[in-house]
């Protein structure tokens, strides 16, 4: 067993375990923190797979995103600490069945498909970043720019939806 194999397995298991914890705890803040740990473990898995730029990006982005999510949890929930052990689930059996079926189907595809010849080495971190930069500003520029415009539109739309409507009087 190589070190890479061990770390991919270890961080993969940690990511899945914390993903399960998200839906097992009654505390919404703990759910957000479990999702943060899950996403961080996935970022560490990327690092194990020698995708250094994406691994660091994943950890940085998810740390911010999940911290914001934890704040929203405290704002919106009646019982963010989960002390009342309130059950907030429905159609549990159907959801569990759908989760298991989709997992089994994806595993079947992973196991039975012939993926062809495998690459043993990948470019080093600096070369990867150069290649990605050239890809983003070359062949994939339109896709990248479209993603940028879409995220800007989403930010404006989210702010517009969230702004409190102003109540106008007859004089105004």
């Amino acid at each position, binding site marked *: 067993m190589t070190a890479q*194999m061990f770390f991919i397995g270890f961080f993969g298991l940690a990511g*899945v375990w914390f993903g399960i914890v998200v*839906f097992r705890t009654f505390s919404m803040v703990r759910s957000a923190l479990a999702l943060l740990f899950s996403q961080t473990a*996935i970022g560490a898995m990327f690092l194990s797979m020698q995708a250094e730029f994406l691994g660091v990006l994943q950890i940085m982005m998810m740390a911010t995103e999940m911290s914001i999510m934890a704040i929203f949890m405290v704002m919106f929930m009646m019982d963010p600490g989960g002390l009342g052990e309130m059950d907030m689930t429905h159609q549990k059996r159907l959801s569990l069945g*759908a989760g298991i079926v*989709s997992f089994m189907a994806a595993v079947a595809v992973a196991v039975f498909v012939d993926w062809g010849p*495998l*690459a043993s080495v990948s470019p080093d971190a600096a070369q990867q970043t150069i290649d990605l930069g050239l890809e983003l500003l070359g062949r994939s520029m339109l896709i990248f720019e479209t993603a940028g415009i879409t995220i800007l539109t989403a930010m404006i739309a*989210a702010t517009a939806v969230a702004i409190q409507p102003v109540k106008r009087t007859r004089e105004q």
Partner: protein
Amino acid sequence: MSIELLLALITGAALFGVGIYGALSQTNLVMIMMGIELILAGAMVNLVAFWRYLHPDNPAGQMFVLIIMTVMAIEMAVGFGVAIARFRAKGSVEMEEAAELKG
């Protein structure tokens, strides 16, 4: 088939399955968004594994991961915008109570 690729694909499948369970079973909007985040995380793990073990010389695989990250950020921004609007209007983000558009 390499064990590393298989491990990564099984991890991606497990995250996808857990995310499907979460998105379908939760009644709170923010928890549903957490399920969708896990589904997208599963897709990202698969993309990185395919890039690393099948086409490490083609950076388009990494570019797709950046697009998924953008989708995650958009989902969060729009989801929280809707959650704030819903909370203002009804005082709750429980989706079982949101049946106004039901035919």
